[in-house]
């Protein structure tokens, strides 16, 4: 498969002289892939995203999206991207929910009935039809996130780029958002690039995970691979996923068992062990 995004040892210097890097392993994304960028606050996740979006100009290193430099081809590439930043409050531009969802379509100069249809379609897909006439300000956190997501998705972009989409959400909203993202990925083959520091959502949404720690991409792989590397995760002060930690401790107690990454897998492994009656 061809890489539609390639990032190679990026370096960025902010006006206040902070240097942020994304070096280490190469960052590549295939069409339709669901990519998670995992790392603690301040690791450089958002800087990496902003380079991919084309909002920042790399001081050093390379970023390529669809074979182009995103910074220099911002207006061309913008149409391929849907972006939701971390704080939804700061990106929903009202007055009504409808206005925000329709924003990009309207800005493209599409006709009113086309815009209406697009907005209604995406609102239906995200089950927020009933919110279209509401004022965004009074919505709950989860609802706002869905509105921002609908606004990013209205033009059916090739990539969906999300910065900490699960932050501040309760369990239910988190699950809903994950489900929406997976549906969108399947139905439109949309590539997902998502940053998060919440390790527990990862297995349910990631094809590939990049772990980034103080500007270095230190692990790349699927959930099973990443979550077995407890030491590297610890260095990156990433929450050890609870199951990995439990099974790691079992290993330490002398039990021979692989580390699972879903509750079902863990249950099966435990039942097997009990059945075998392995003595410790």
């Amino acid at each position, binding site marked *: 498969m061809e890489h539609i995004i390639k990032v190679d040892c990026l370096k960025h210097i902010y006006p206040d002289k902070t240097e942020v890097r994304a070096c280490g392993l190469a960052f590549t994304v295939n069409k339709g892939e669901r990519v998670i960028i995992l790392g603690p606050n301040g690791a450089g996740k958002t800087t990496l995203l902003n380079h991919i979006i084309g909002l920042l100009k790399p001081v050093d290193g390379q970023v390529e999206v669809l074979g182009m430099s995103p910074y220099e081809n911002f207006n061309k590439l913008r149409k391929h991207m849907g972006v939701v930043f971390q704080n939804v409050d700061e990106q929903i531009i*009202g*007055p*009504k929910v409808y206005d925000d969802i329709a924003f990009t379509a309207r800005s493209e100069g599409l006709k009113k009935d086309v815009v209406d249809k697009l907005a209604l379609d995406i609102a239906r897909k995200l089950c927020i039809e009933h919110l279209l006439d509401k*004022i965004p*300000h009074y919505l709950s956190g989860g609802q706002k996130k869905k509105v921002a997501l609908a606004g990013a998705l209205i033009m059916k972009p090739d990539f969906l780029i999300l910065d900490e989409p699960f932050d501040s959400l309760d369990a239910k909203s988190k699950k809903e958002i994950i489900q929406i993202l997976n549906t969108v990925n399947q139905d439109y083959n949309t590539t997902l690039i998502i940053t998060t520091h919440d390790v527990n959502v990862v297995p349910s949404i990631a094809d590939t995970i990049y772990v980034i720690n103080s500007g270095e991409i230190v692990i790349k792989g699927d959930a099973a691979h990443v979550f077995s590397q407890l030491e590297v995760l610890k260095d990156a002060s990433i929450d050890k996923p609870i199951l990995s930690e439990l099974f790691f401790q079992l290993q330490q107690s002398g039990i021979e068992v692989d580390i699972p990454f879903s509750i079902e897998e863990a249950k099966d492994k435990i039942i097997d062990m009990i059945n075998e009656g392995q003595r410790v």
Partner: protein
Amino acid sequence: MSHIHFPDGIIPLYIWIPAYLVTFGIIFLITKTIEKEKIKKLLPLTGIAAALMLIGMSVPLVIIPVHLSLAVLTGILIGPKLGFVVVFVVGLILASFGHGGITIVGINTLVIGSEVFVGSMLFRLLGKKKKLLGVVFSTVIALVISLALMVSVVGYTAGFENALPHTHLEHSHEHEEHIDHHEDHHEHSGELEESISNINYLFFSGWVALILIFVFGIALETIVTSLIVMFFYKVRPSLIDSAHNFANN
């Protein structure tokens, strides 16, 4: 929009010092008329309004080519009293990095303060029934008045007569008192009559250009202010309605 970007050293002492004194007098009166308990509630509001105005004036809004003042809007939202305080605070902060002189802050406060006052009072009067018309009228009139004030200050300083072709001779004396270096120039002023009228002509077309800029500025500020007020009507009408009952602010 009529923030005077005038640097220091042009407006004479006998204008800017009294302007400062009057400004402080008004601020003193304002702080005296607000109840102590209410100050707690109004402090964050005032600070935030000033921050918003600073953002309007100093942050390039990228997608439209000019800065906004948001003075009338501030008046509508928080009333003329606090609006006046806000204008002073903003003026002082802008002056701190050369966005207008430090000596001009008093004059600026009075000029833009009048804009806030006229705008918010008119809106209370006119905005009750016809919202959109009310805000458009209030903004335009407030801007015109503050512009007129600003032009008078500038004009007075420069000498209005100066702008008119036949009075430049009398005026040259005024400057002789000020600046001794220039006597030689004015001795020949008779010979230079012709070229000076040319300059006057240029100067006049300068005024035309200036007026066009003013009209553009007024139009833009009015449109943005009206759109924002209408935005609030849609989103939170109580905000604008309360502007009509601001008896105490």
